[in-house]
C-alpha cells in the first residue's frame, strides 16, 4: 500500500535530494544526498526465519529457525539461532531444555546426516546409499517377520501378530502421515509401534 504521489515515478528516478521526497521538500535535500552517498558502500545482509517443528518429542513444539546467507550466491548458509515460535498454540514461544539446545543438535559433529551401516563383524560405520539401506532394512524385516510371525494364539484364534520388530515414527508428522504410517505398520501385524501421536 504505497503512498500515491502524483508524478512520483518520474521524480523517483531523478535521484535523492529532489522535491520528490519528504527530506527534499522540507529543505533537507543536501543532508539527504550526503547520506545517500555515505550509505552507498554498505551492503545488505540477508537472513531467513523458518517455521518448523521441534524434532524431539510428540508435544511437537513450534520453532523458528534463523539462518544466514543467500542460497543463490556463494555465501555459505548456516542456521544461526533457534527459538520457540511465539505464534504456535502448543508452546507459545517456550521450549524445554532439550528444545532450547536444538542449535547444538543441528551443528553437532556426530549428527546423523545420511544412512550409515556397520557390517557384521566390522568395528566402524560407513556411509551407504538410501537404496542400499532401505533394501537391507526391508530384507531384514521380512526375514524377521517370516521367522517370528504369530498367526494363531494358543486357542487357535487368528491374531496375525508380529511382536519381534518395533516401529518408532517421528513427532512432526501430519495427521495424514500418521494415518498412513499406522495403516502400513498395523497391516504388517506389527504391535510394537509408537507413532508419537499420543499426547
Amino acid at each position, binding site marked *: *500500500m504505497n*503512498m500515491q504521489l502524483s508524478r512520483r515515478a518520474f*521524480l523517483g528516478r531523478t535521484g535523492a535530494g529532489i522535491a520528490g521526497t*519528504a527530506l*527534499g521538500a522540507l*529543505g*533537507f535535500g543536501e543532508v539527504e544526498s550526503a547520506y545517500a552517498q555515505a550509505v552507498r558502500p554498505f551492503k545488505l545482509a540477508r537472513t531467513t526465519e*523458518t517455521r518448523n517443528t521441534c524434532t524431539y518429542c510428540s508435544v511437537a513444539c513450534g520453532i523458528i529457525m534463523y539462518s544466514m546467507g543467500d542460497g543463490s550466491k556463494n555465501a555459505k548458509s548456516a542456521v544461526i539461532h533457534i527459538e520457540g515460535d511465539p505464534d504456535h498454540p502448543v508452546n507459545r*514461544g517456550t521450549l524445554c531444555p532439550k528444545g532450547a539446545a536444538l542449535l547444538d543438535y543441528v551443528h553437532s559433529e556426530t549428527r546423523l546426516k545420511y544412512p550409515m551401516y556397520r557390517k557384521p563383524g566390522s568395528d566402524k560405520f560407513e556411509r551407504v546409499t538410501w537404496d542400499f539401506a532401505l533394501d537391507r532394512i526391508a530384507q531384514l524385516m521380512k526375514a524377521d517377520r517370516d521367522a517370528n510371525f504369530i498367526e494363531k494364539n494358543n486357542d487357535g484364534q487368528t491374531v496375525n501378530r508380529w511382536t519381534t520388530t518395533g516401529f518408532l515414527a517421528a513427532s512432526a508428522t501430519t495427521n495424514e502421515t500418521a494415518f498412513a504410517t499406522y495403516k502400513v505398520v498395523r497391516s504388517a501385524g506389527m504391535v510394537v509401534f509408537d507413532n508419537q501421536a499420543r499426547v
Partner: protein
Amino acid sequence: MAKGGNPLHDSVPIGEEAKPPFAILPDPASLFAARAARFRALADGHELGPYLLFLAGIADIQNALIGGLPAVAPPTADALARAASFGMPPLDRNAFVFDETYKATFAKLLAAAGKLDMPQAAREALDRLAAADDARREELARSMLADSAEVEFLADHIFVAAALQVHLARMAATLDADKLVEIGPGACPSCGGPPVSSMVVGWQGSHGSRFCVCAHCATKWNYVRIKCTLCGETKGIEYHEVDGSGGAVKAETCASCGGYVKAMQQIKHPDVDPVADDVASLALDILMREEGRRRGAVNPFLFGY
C-alpha cells in the same frame, strides 16, 4: 489428594508464554514524548542528524498539544455497531469530520512549529499553511487520510500528517481494544490504516510476538511473524538488514508481492520506536531500492521512498 474428574495439568514454567492481546490502543500522553526522545537519541552522530532533530521538535510539539485540546468526538454507537457488523474498522477515515477539535489541533501545531529551527523550504510550507483557508486545510487532511499527497506540496502534507497523527491517536484512544477485530493483512483494526512498521516485542506476556503499528493512529495489532504485513503471504519471506547494523531494524521482504515493511527488533533493542527508527534507518530503504524492492510501509516523514 488429587481430586476426581478431569485430570489437572500443572503447567511447568519453561519460559515466557506469549499470550499477546490482539490490539493495543495508543496512549497519546506518552506516545509522542517517547518518540521525541528516540529521535534525539538517534540524531546523535547520525548523518541525518539535522532532519532527525527537526522531527524530534515536531514530536515535542505533538506531545505538548496533548492535554491542551478540546475533547475528540468518538464514533457514535450507530457507527460502531455498523462497523462491527460488517467487519470494518470503527474509525472510518473516509468519513473524517473536519471538526473544531481537528482545526484547533492543526492551528496549534502550526503556531508551535513556527518556533522550530527549519530550512527555508519547510518555513515556506508553514507560511502557505498558515495562509490557507479551511477548505484547503480540509482538502489536505482528506488526501493524507486517503494515503495520497500532491508532490508539489509534500512539505505541507507532512505538517498536516503530524496534526493527523495527534488527532487519530486521540480518536483511537477512545475505542474499546477488546472489541477490535482483525480486518485483513496490512489494515489497522482501529482505522484500517497501513502499518508504518512492525515490532517484535519483549513485553511481559507477549514475549517474541509481533505487532504492526498503524501509520495513522498508532494502534498496535498482533500479527503472526514471518508473514507479509502487506499481502498476508507466508512463503518466500526474507529479512534484509544493513550489514553490520546490529539487526535492530530488518526489512521483511515478500517474494509474492515484492514489497517490504521494516520489522523492528524491540525484543533486542528496547528503545526502538516504530516511526523514529523507520526514518533513521533510511539507509536500508536506499539499499533496498537499489535492489528493486518496493517500500510498502507508509510514513509521511519518508515520503518518496
